[in-house]
């Protein structure tokens, strides 16, 4: 099964809708709750990063018998130093964003922790692609 989502940049009111929608689908398919949790956390963090740091983007999800593969693609500013961005506590979020509770610098570490496979490609001025895989078994 293939799913595609368009994510608006800087629209906080609908931010997280793609993750919520995938969660509903996985629930209907009867996927185990602890696996849905891993997928929801990883995808939400990546989706919010796209909204907060990269003016939105597109998400493609491929659901197969043994895994869920999520690819999030944006054409935002890119990440100059991915190793640094992966560090717990590292954030470039603005003051306004931090007041909403984002910007703890825990999003990428959460993706790493809750997914089975995480790959972040980024090019400054071009954009960022995040690949998340969670195994179903």
């Amino acid at each position, binding site marked *: 099964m293939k799913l595609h989502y368009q994510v608006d940049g800087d629209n906080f*009111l609908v*931010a*997280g809708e793609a993750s919520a929608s995938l969660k509903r689908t996985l629930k209907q398919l009867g996927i185990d*709750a602890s696996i849905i*949790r891993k997928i929801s*956390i990883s995808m939400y963090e990546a989706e919010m990063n796209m909204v907060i740091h990269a003016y939105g983007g597109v998400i493609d999800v491929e659901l197969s018998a043994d895994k869920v593969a999520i690819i999030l693609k944006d054409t935002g500013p890119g990440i100059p130093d991915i190793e640094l961005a992966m560090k717990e506590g590292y954030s470039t979020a603005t003051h306004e964003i931090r007041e909403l*509770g984002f910007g*703890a610098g825990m999003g990428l570490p*959460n993706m790493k922790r809750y997914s089975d496979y995480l790959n972040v490609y980024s090019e400054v001025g071009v954009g960022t692609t995040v690949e998340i895989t969670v195994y179903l078994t």
Partner: protein
Amino acid sequence: MTIKELIRSAEFEIVAGEKGMDNEVEGGYVGDLLSFVMAHAKEKDVWVTIQGHINSVAVASLLGLSAIILSEGVAADSEMIKKADEEGIPILRTKLSSFDVVCKVSGVIRT
């Protein structure tokens, strides 16, 4: 215990999400940084926070939290109320500090 029972014994004001009043409560989490909540809050937790906006409802809904308790007299904005009603996530409000909310809630659910 359910949210309904929790409200009865701990005097929180319900401001939205009444559809979820029968949600079960098994524990709780306190925090205002959403990524920490994502990482640590568990299904059926009540979440005590001062984040009275729509993104909190998205987090609660994704994690299957049983309710959001807004402490320190913080109000829920109108988008939060609308979303919480749609999702059936109860929003409770109180003037108590987050610490005092935890004391109250734990006194009720741990006994």
